C-alpha cells in the first residue's frame, strides 16, 4: 500500500528531506538486487528515464530511476531550492513542488486563508496527478511545524483539502510543536489555530516537541564524547545520524533532530513495507489507537537511540529496549506516559525479535502502567523482520495516553497570555476570511479536547465496576 507524504513549510521540508534520504538508505541496505519491489513502491516510483513515464512495475524489473512520491510545498523558496540543488535533486520533479517567494511571515492566517485560497487549484491538480501514479493509495502524511505560518496554516489547509478530495484515504500528521522559548512570538496563535484543524480533520497526529528532540541529541552527544562507549557505537545506528545516506557531506544544525523524526516515520511504515510474522499496517494503527474520533494524538518513542558495534544481543539488552520505550527520555514530546492513563498502546518491533520476547516484556511492564478500565489489555503489536540500518532490532511505541494533556494546557496558556492583550491580533484579522471568531472557536476546540482528557483522567484509579452482562432467557 502506498503513502503520499506532504512536506509543508520550512520545518516540514527539512524533515522531509531527511526522511527521503534515510528511506533511500534503508531500502538500499535491504534491496541488494536492485529490483523495484513492493517495499520500494510504497514511497518511490520507478521512472523509465527514456520515456519519462513509469518504468518496470513491481517485481518486473530493475530500478531505473527512483522518484519519491511526495509533494513539497513552501511559500518561501530557499529550503526547497536547496533540496533541488543538492544530492536529492533527482528524486523530485517539478510536478511535485509548489513554492512562492515571500513566505507566510509566521502568520497562520496568511498560510491558511491567503495562500490556501490562492494555491488551492494548483495543489489539487498536483495532488491528483501524484495520486494517479499510486496503485493503491492508503495514507497521506503531512509533515509540518505548528508554530510558523506556512507549515501551520497552509499545512492544515492541505489537510482539509485532502479530506474533501480523498475522504477514504487516511490522514496522518507529524506535527512539530513549538517549545516555550520559541523565538516566534506568535507561535501560540499559529499552533492553536492549527490544533482546531487537526482535531477535526486528522485521523492520527504524532506530536513532536523540539525540546525532546534536542534532549535526545544532547544525550547522544554526551554519550559519544564521554569516551566510555563512544568508539564502539555504530555511526549509522544513531537515531540522529545521516551516516551512509546521500546527504552526509552537508550536515546542518537541525539535521540531527530532523533525523529522529525521519526515523519515526520510517519505523511507523516499516511493517507496511517489509515482511514480518505479524504485520501492522497504517490503517491498523488508526483502528486500534483511536477509540474516540477526537482523541487521536499519539505519543511516540523510539528505541534504541544507538547500537554498539558488538552485535551480540543478550535477552537483557532486548528487554532494556522495551523498558526504555516507556521512559521519559525516549518520548518525542515532553511527557511521562508511565504516570498518566493509557487508552491504548502499540508496539512495533523490527528485527530479530519473536512473539515470546514481545509477550514476556508486555507481561513485565504491564503492572507498572495504568490502562483505562475498558481497555485493560489495550496492546496492539507488530513484528517486522527487517531491522533499521545499523541495528539488529528496534522498537517504536505509540501511546494514546492522557500525558499529552500538559502539552495542550501549556499551549492554551501561552495562547491566552497573548490573546488577552490582543497582541499581534491585527496581523491576523487583516487577512481576508479571518475573524475574531476563528480565534475563539480554536481555543474552544482546544479546551474541549483538554476536557475530554480530564474526564478520562478522572476515572484513573477509581473503583472498577464492570457493566452487567446481557441476561438470556434460558
Amino acid at each position: 500500500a502506498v503513502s503520499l507524504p506532504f512536506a509543508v513549510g520550512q520545518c516540514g521540508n527539512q524533515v522531509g528531506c531527511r526522511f527521503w534520504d534515510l528511506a533511500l538508505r534503508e531500502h538500499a541496505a535491504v534491496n541488494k538486487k536492485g529490483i523495484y519491489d513492493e517495499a520500494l513502491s510504497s514511497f518511490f516510483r520507478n521512472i523509465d528515464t527514456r520515456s519519462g513515464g513509469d518504468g518496470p512495475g513491481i517485481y518486473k524489473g530493475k530500478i531505473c530511476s527512483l522518484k519519491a512520491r511526495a509533494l513539497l510545498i513552501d511559500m518561501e523558496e530557499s529550503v526547497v531550492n536547496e533540496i533541488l540543488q543538492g544530492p536529492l535533486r533527482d528524486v523530485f520533479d517539478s510536478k511535485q513542488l509548489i513554492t512562492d517567494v515571500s513566505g507566510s511571515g509566521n502568520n497562520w492566517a496568511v498560510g491558511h486563508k491567503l495562500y490556501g485560497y490562492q494555491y488551492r487549484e494548483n495543489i489539487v491538480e498536483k495532488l491528483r496527478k501524484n495520486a494517479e501514479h499510486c496503485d493503491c493509495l492508503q495514507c497521506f502524511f503531512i509533515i509540518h511545524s505548528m508554530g510558523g505560518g506556512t507549515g501551520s496554516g497552509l499545512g492544515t489547509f492541505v489537510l482539509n483539502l485532502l479530506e474533501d478530495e480523498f475522504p477514504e484515504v487516511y490522514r496522518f500528521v507529524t506535527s512539530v510543536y513549538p517549545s516555550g522559548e520559541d523565538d516566534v512570538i506568535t507561535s501560540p496563535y499559529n499552533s492553536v489555530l492549527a490544533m482546531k484543524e487537526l482535531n477535526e480533520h486528522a485521523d492520527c497526529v504524532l506530536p513532536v516537541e523540539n525540546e525532546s528532540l534536542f534532549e535526545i541529541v544532547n544525550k547522544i552527544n554526551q554519550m559519544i564524547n564521554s569516551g566510555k562507549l563512544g568508539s564502539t557505537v555504530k555511526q549509522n545506528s544513531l537515531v540522529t545520524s545521516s551516516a551512509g545516506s546521500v546527504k552526509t557531506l552537508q550536515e546542518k544544525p537541525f539535521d540531527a533532530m530532523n533525523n529522529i523524526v525521519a526515523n519515526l516515520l520510517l519505523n511507523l511504515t516499516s511493517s507496511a513495507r517489509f515482511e514480518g510474522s505479524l504485520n501492522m499496517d497504517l490503517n491498523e494503527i488508526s483502528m486500534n489507537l483511536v477509540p474516540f474520533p477526537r482523541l487521536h494524538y499519539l505519543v511516540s518513542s523510539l528505541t534504541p537511540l544507538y547500537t554498539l558495534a558488538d552485535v551480540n544481543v543478550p535477552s537483557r539488552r532486548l528487554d532494556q529496549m522495551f523498558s526504555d520505550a516507556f521512559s521519559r527520555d525516549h518520548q518525542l514530546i515532553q511527557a511521562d506516559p508511565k504516570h498518566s492513563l493509557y487508552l491504548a498502546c502499540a508496539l512495533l518491533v523490527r528485527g530479530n525479535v519473536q512473539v515470546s520476547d514481545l509477550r514476556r516484556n508486555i507481561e513485565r511492564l504491564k503492572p507498572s502502567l495504568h490502562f483505562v478500565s475498558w481497555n485493560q489489555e489495550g496492546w496492539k503489536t507488530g513484528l517486522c523482520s527487517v531491522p533499521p540500518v545499523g541495528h539488529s532490532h528496534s522498537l517504536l511505541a505509540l501511546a494514546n495516553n492522557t500525558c499529552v494533556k500538559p502539552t495542550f494546557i501549556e499551549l492554551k496558556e501561552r495562547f491566552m497570555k497573548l490573546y488577552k492583550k490582543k497582541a499581534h491580533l491585527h496581523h491576523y484579522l487583516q487577512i481576508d476570511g479571518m475573524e475574531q471568531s476563528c480565534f475563539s472557536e480554536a481555543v474552544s476546540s482546544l479546551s474541549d479536547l483538554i476536557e475530554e482528557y480530564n474526564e478520562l483522567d478522572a476515572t484513573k484509579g477509581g473503583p472498577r465496576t464492570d457493566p452487567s452482562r446481557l441476561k438470556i432467557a434460558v
Partner: protein
Amino acid sequence: MSIVTVQLGQCGNQIGHEVFHSLCSDIRGTHGLCSRKENQSYQDACKERFFWEQESGVPVARAVLVDMEPKVISQTLSIAARSGCWKYNSQSHFCQKQGSGNNWANGYSVHGPRHKESIMNLVQKEAERCDRLGGFVTIMSMAGGTGSGLGAFVTRCLRDAFPASFILNHVIWPYGTGEVIVQNYNSVLTLAHLYRSADALLVHENDAIHKICAQLMNIKHISFRDVNQVIAHQLGSVFQPAHTTEGDPNYSRNPLGDLMETLVPHPEFKMLGLRSIPQIAENSLPYSTFSWPGLIKHLRQMLIANAQMEEGIDWQVRPPPPGSSSHSTKKPLHFNTSVANLVILRGKDVHTVDLGSFQDPSLYTSWLNPQDAFNAWRTPRAFNKYEKSASLVSNSQFLLKPLDSVVGKAWNMFASKAYIHQYTKFGIEEEDFLDSFTTLEQVISSYTTL
C-alpha cells in the same frame, strides 16, 4: 473425498502453509510402522483428500488463498514452491493491496461484497476439481480484520453456494493480552456469524499452544512459526486419513462428515476443542517411549480437568459421583462436561487400546447415550514420526471460560462505546453488535447448563 481449504488473512495463510507442509512431510516419511501396502493406501488417501497432481508430478494443494494485502500470500506461495515436495496453484489466490485494518466491518461489509465473485470463482474451481467434494475447511484468526470479517462473510457465501457441503471453521483464538486492541470486538462478531453458517468451529488458542512450545517443546525464543507448526501437527493428527468405522479396513471417505456426525449432535453446540498428545521436540522423539495406558489416562484427565497439555494436569478433578443428576449443583466445580468426544489413535497396537474410561456416562451431559456421545478412530499407520499418538476432539465446556472472558471484555468496552465509530464507519451498527452479543450469551448459557 476431497477437502478444499480456504486460507484467510495473515494467520490463515501462515498456518495453512504449515498444515500442508506437515501433511506432505508425514506421507513422505517412512516411519509409518506399517506394511508398504498400508502406507501406500494412506498416501493415496491423503493425496486425494488434500492435493491434486499436475503433469510435473508435484502435488498441488487444494486450497484458495485470500488476503487483503499481498505480502503474506506472496511469501506463502514462494516458500511452498521452493520446498520441491508440494506447492500451491499459482492461480488459486486472491489479494488486494490495502488490508482490512483489523476492522471486522471493513472485512465483512466492504471487502466481502466487493470481492465475493472473485473469491467464490476460485472456490468453485477448486470444488469442481474434486472428484467428490467432502467439504470445506477455512483457516482464520478472530482477532484481525480479514480472517475474521472477510472470513465470516466467505463462510456465509460457502453455505449459500454449497448448502449440502460440510463446513468447518478452524479458528485461532488470540493471546489474551492483546495482539490487537479491538480483538474482542472482532472475535464476538466473528463467532456469532460463524455460528450461523458453519457446521462446527474447531478452535486453537494461542496462549495454550504457546505454553506447549515453552514447556513441552523446550523452545527458547518462541516464534509464530513455532506456534503454527504445533497447530499444524495437531490438525494433521485429525485430518490425515483414518479408519472411522470399526472393522472397515478402508480409510474414511467422508472425513468432515464423520467428524460432524460424531461431534455435533445439536446445532446449539458447535465449539470443538482439540488436544493432542504426546507433544515433544522432534529431536527428543527417538529417545522417548510412551505407553497407551499412560497416554489414555492423561488424555482423559486432560478432558475432565480441561488441561491444555499433558503437564500440570489437575489430578484432583473427578467426575461427579454416579446417581447425581447432571443438572445438580453438586457437580464438582472445574469439571469439564462433554456433549460428545472423539478420540483418534494412530500408531502401534492401536487396536489393543482400552478406551472404556472415555465411555463413562458421568463425563457426559444426560441427553445423549454415552455410546453415541463417544467415538474412536483407530489407525495403525503412525503419524508424523510419533510411534503412538492420541488426539481428542471434544465438544465440551473446554471453550466456555475463554468464550465468557472474550464476551465479558468486549461487553465492557462496548459499554463505553470505545472504537464503535470505527465500525459504524463501515456499516456495522450498534444493533449488529447487540445481536452478536445475544447469540454468544446464548451459546455460553447452553454450555454452562450442560
